[in-house]
């Protein structure tokens, strides 16, 4: 019996996982989200930039379609936060797959706040090279991005015309699905040009960025869907991340139950094998 349970068809486990995800989404109830210090630090920095007046924020999109459910909600929340305080936003992409996603997010949120392209925000598009783009921007933004994504000269856009380099940004946030924060932005950008740097990253990457938070190289960090839900709560606009947290909770409980059950049966079968 125990052997049969230990070697159960994995498709049965898949069904349990799917039920754990789908049922809470259909029932539509939310558990309260607890704010972590990392997410609060990100929020506080944007509030500080807004309080100082006439701030400009650089958003770097370093993710792709595979991590949209985790990162896109935090992008939308941060854009809403920036636009609600009339901060200027410049968006760049360091991954080619991010261009369409960045465009979609910018168009959606700018329409909500009546923001004008060129005057309130600019989208510079993708440049290959990763860390080298950051080195280039660190010296001269217009050398790295002579035109925006739609072919307009960056010197002609109101938002970017007075920006010379990375030093001129009040806050830089990288939305990372890979190691763009620790391998690109921190060593090639923040280290030399000393701008405040924040990260919105997938849950897989989040533990790796803790040393940078501790050293002060990162102001704050939004880690995974939970981080996105926390930021939605901070800006007071619950969205898909908040709705997903109940499913996240139920599937975590299911998985923990599987792990405990698997271990319990393993130890029982081991003990009965020994007694035989």
């Amino acid at each position, binding site marked *: 019996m125990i052997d049969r349970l230990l070697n*159960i068809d*994995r498709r049965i*486990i*898949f069904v*349990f*996982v799917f039920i754990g995800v789908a049922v809470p989404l259909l029932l539509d109830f*939310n*558990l*309260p*989200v*607890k704010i*972590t*210090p990392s997410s609060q630090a990100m929020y506080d920095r944007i509030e500080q930039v807004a309080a100082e007046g006439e701030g400009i924020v650089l958003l770097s999109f370093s993710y792709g*379609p*595979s*991590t*949209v*459910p985790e990162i896109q909600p935090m992008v939308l929340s941060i854009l809403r936060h920036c636009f609600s305080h009339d901060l200027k936003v410049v968006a760049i992409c360091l991954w080619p*797959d991010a261009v*369409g*996603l960045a*465009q979609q997010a910018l168009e959606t949120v700018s329409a909500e706040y009546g923001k004008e392209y060129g005057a309130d925000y600019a989208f510079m*598009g993708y*440049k*290959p*090279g990763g860390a*080298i783009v950051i*080195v*280039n921007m660190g*010296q*001269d933004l217009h*050398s*790295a991005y002579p035109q925006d*994504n*739609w*072919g*307009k000269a960056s010197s002609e856009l109101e938002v970017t015309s007075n920006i010379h380099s990375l030093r001129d940004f009040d806050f830089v946030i990288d939305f990372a699905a890979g190691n763009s924060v*620790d391998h690109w932005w921190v060593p090639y950008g923040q280290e030399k040009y000393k701008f405040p740097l924040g990260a919105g990253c997938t*849950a897989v990457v989040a*533990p*790796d960025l*803790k*040393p940078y938070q*501790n050293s002060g190289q990162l102001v704050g960090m939004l880690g*995974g869907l*939970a981080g996105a839900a926390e930021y939605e709560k901070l800006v007071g606009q619950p969205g898909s991340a908040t709705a997903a947290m*109940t499913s*996240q*909770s*139920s599937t*975590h*409980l*299911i*998985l*923990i139950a*599987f*792990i405990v059950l*698997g*271990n319990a049966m*393993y130890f029982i079968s081991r003990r009965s094998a020994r007694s035989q």
Partner: protein
Amino acid sequence: MLFLRRTLPMILAFVTGIIGISIYYVPHSSAQGLEEVLARWLRIVYAFAFFLGLFSLLNLHWRRVRARQAGWGYSLIVYLSFGLMIFFVLYNDGTGPFSPQARAGGYQWLFLNVQVPCGATMFSILAFFISSAAYRTFRARTPEAAILLVAAVIVMLGRVPVGAYIHDFFPAAAQWLMDVPNMAAKRGILLGVSLGIVATSLRIIFGIERSYLGGGEE
């Protein structure tokens, strides 16, 4: 000929490497200007590097089609879908390839309705397999494995709302685990990896590491 094929590239790697190190420490505007130019050139060279990957991909599938290997029909699908997307790239919503990128059109439609759902779904399949693996193989066979398991369970409970609902211990414990022991271990790994990167970079600059030259005739 050996000079052009081997020695010149190694000299170039050495010179550019030394320049790359030096201009970091020279604050003079000419050094910073040189850094800006070299970085811009490197960015453009990176753009051409994309074609190496593209050629490899298309060549792999072409060889499968030509040799009629098992599953060659799927390689034809790769070519057809590539061709479809390339058509829309070049069409560029009616403005053609020699205009700036259009804001809308078939290119954007295919990205949002084919590439995004496919990419998101491929990675989400891992959720099922990780669940199955957690049940079948995640065993506390040794004390170290037990530590790993307990840490994982605390973090899994602490980072979701239900953990705080059960008891305030879980979010506090998860936060402490991330901020102290996890951070310490990651810092140790980071120091080691960074020193390794520095060592490898020095080996490349001084010509000890030559794998970037590739194989073939010297």
